[in-house]
């Protein structure tokens, strides 16, 4: 059983009449419960890979299986549903909605799932508790530090109990001490049996994962940790 399977996946962008192979026949697989980092310099195609794994984009050719489901033929509506139920995103710049409180931000994916109010409150509180921010629920992102904002984002990702956490340079905007705290949280998530994919260009961060997948010019090489 694999969580993620890429088989011969290609993605080509046309920029100024020139073809750019963002992903060039990439193949790899990730099993449930793994903590994997995808590492590569900027322009290597790791963002494209993340977008495809996260169902924000679809591949031009090749096969992508998520939880055993082939993704490439999905309609926009189905992709939305997969993002909502199966994937928890954590972004470099946190991507919280500024005019909403921490609680409201965490609540949002549950609203789109159609969870009832009482259950929603309970789950939001639990999620904030797990990232150690249960007392900060009523604060807006501007009233929180970078580390705290990233914790809120992690709470928003884990509140739906997704099959996969997808983190894109989660420590990129944080100082090293706060970055380490966030990494602690990821280890905690991993220990609880969650699948984590961490995308980074930073070797030190990448080394903390159990397995590393290196990507260069759209080609994938496995590096065993």
């Amino acid at each position, binding site marked *: 059983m694999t969580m993620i399977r890429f088989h011969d996946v290609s993605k080509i962008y046309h920029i100024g009449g020139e073809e750019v192979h963002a992903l060039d026949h990439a193949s790899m697989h990730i099993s449930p419960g793994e903590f994997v980092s995808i590492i590569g310099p900027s322009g290597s195609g790791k963002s494209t890979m993340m977008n495809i794994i996260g169902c924000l984009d679809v591949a031009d050719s090749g096969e992508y299986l998520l939880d055993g489901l082939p993704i490439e033929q999905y309609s*926009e509506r189905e992709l*939305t549903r997969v*993002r909502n139920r199966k994937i928890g995103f954590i972004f470099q710049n946190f991507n919280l*909605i500024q*005019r909403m409180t921490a609680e409201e931000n965490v609540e949002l994916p549950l609203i*789109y*799932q159609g969870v009832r109010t009482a259950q929603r409150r309970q789950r939001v509180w639990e999620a904030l508790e797990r990232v150690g921010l249960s007392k900060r629920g009523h604060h807006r992102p501007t009233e929180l530090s970078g580390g705290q904002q990233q914790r809120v984002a992690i709470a*928003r990702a884990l509140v739906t109990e997704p099959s996969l956490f997808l983190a894109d340079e989660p420590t990129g905007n944080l100082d090293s001490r706060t970055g380490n705290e966030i990494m602690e949280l990821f280890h905690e998530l991993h220990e609880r049996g969650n699948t984590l994919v961490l995308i980074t260009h930073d070797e030190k961060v990448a080394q903390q994962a159990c397995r590393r997948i290196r990507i260069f010019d759209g080609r994938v090489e496995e590096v065993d940790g």
Partner: protein
Amino acid sequence: MIFQSLKMAWSAILSNKMRSFLTMLGIIIGVVSLVVLVSIVSGATDSVTEQINSIGTNLLTVRITDDKENPLKLSELSEIAEKEEIGETAPIAQTGATAKSGYTSDDITVYGTTGAYYNIQGLTLAAGRFLKKSDMDNNTYVAVLNQTAAEEIFGTTNVIGEEISLDGRGFRIVGVLAEEESAVSSLISGTLEAYIPYTTIIRMADNIFHITSFYASSADEDSMDAAESTLKTWMLERFGNDEDAFTIINQSALMETMGSVTNTLALMLGGIAGISLLVGGIGIMNIMLVSVTERTKEIGIRKAIGAGRASIMMQFLIEALMVSLMGCLAGIVLSVGILYLAGMAMEEMSFHISMGVVWVAVGFSVLIGVVFGIYPAGKAAGKPPIEALRYSG
């Protein structure tokens, strides 16, 4: 989900209060002008209609322009009145005179008519009696004054039995009319009027020789057209089939004309107000488009965590609808206030908001919210999530 969308829209509106208010202002002004203008026109129409009604809608006025050397006689008027469709008939003639009593004198309008005039015009007496048939038969010198005349000349309305001199002839006052309380009569109040027997005015005035105009009432208000055609047939027969010898004015036809004029006016003013609502709607669209661009990132985040096209569409559409409906509500409340003040300023007229125009305003606002909200909402919903997430603005 609807409740959540409402909550989201509300928080978005609150997050930029000034801008939301300015956007709403377009709708507020549109709704106020629609409701106030239409209400004022319909209020004015109501009060004018009421006054015409009080004169009597079953009134036919006949004016004879060419009597073919064979003028109408009073007995012929009675003959007309005997017809089934006709209620009563009364001749009317008027002349100016100087009224005198003791040392007071004043200009007065003297009307010569018969007793039927009282019912046809729907008059009411304050004291005494109106003219009688015996007054006609005997050419008596009796007069009925209106209230203004009694007050101006005698200083009191208690004048039954007093003598009054009209152009030097002595008349005995037998009745005083009650003042009518309507805007039309208050406009022409101040005129002094005396009513004397028709036969007497012919003797008194040197320019009145025979009947040149008279009033007729229909048997009831529904048979106006039948009464008019009966009267017309009779008159044609009487005056050698010459249609130009006389004119018949139908009061209810006048009402209909009036009605169509005021309806056109209301439609025209409503249309102008509608245009300002439309402009308000364009304002909403403009601001929604700006808002969608500003919130591109938010849309990207929402899509990434699982908001579908429909949810995003709904969120922005509800926001547009909410702005236009809130504007509409504020506009209606403001209109009530303005009409209340207008009603206080102009006592003769009463303005009340017609529920019809309120529903039109609400319906129009919903339409505007949807029509002008759907394009920005569609634009928001169609944003590809990756590009939206990458947006930094």
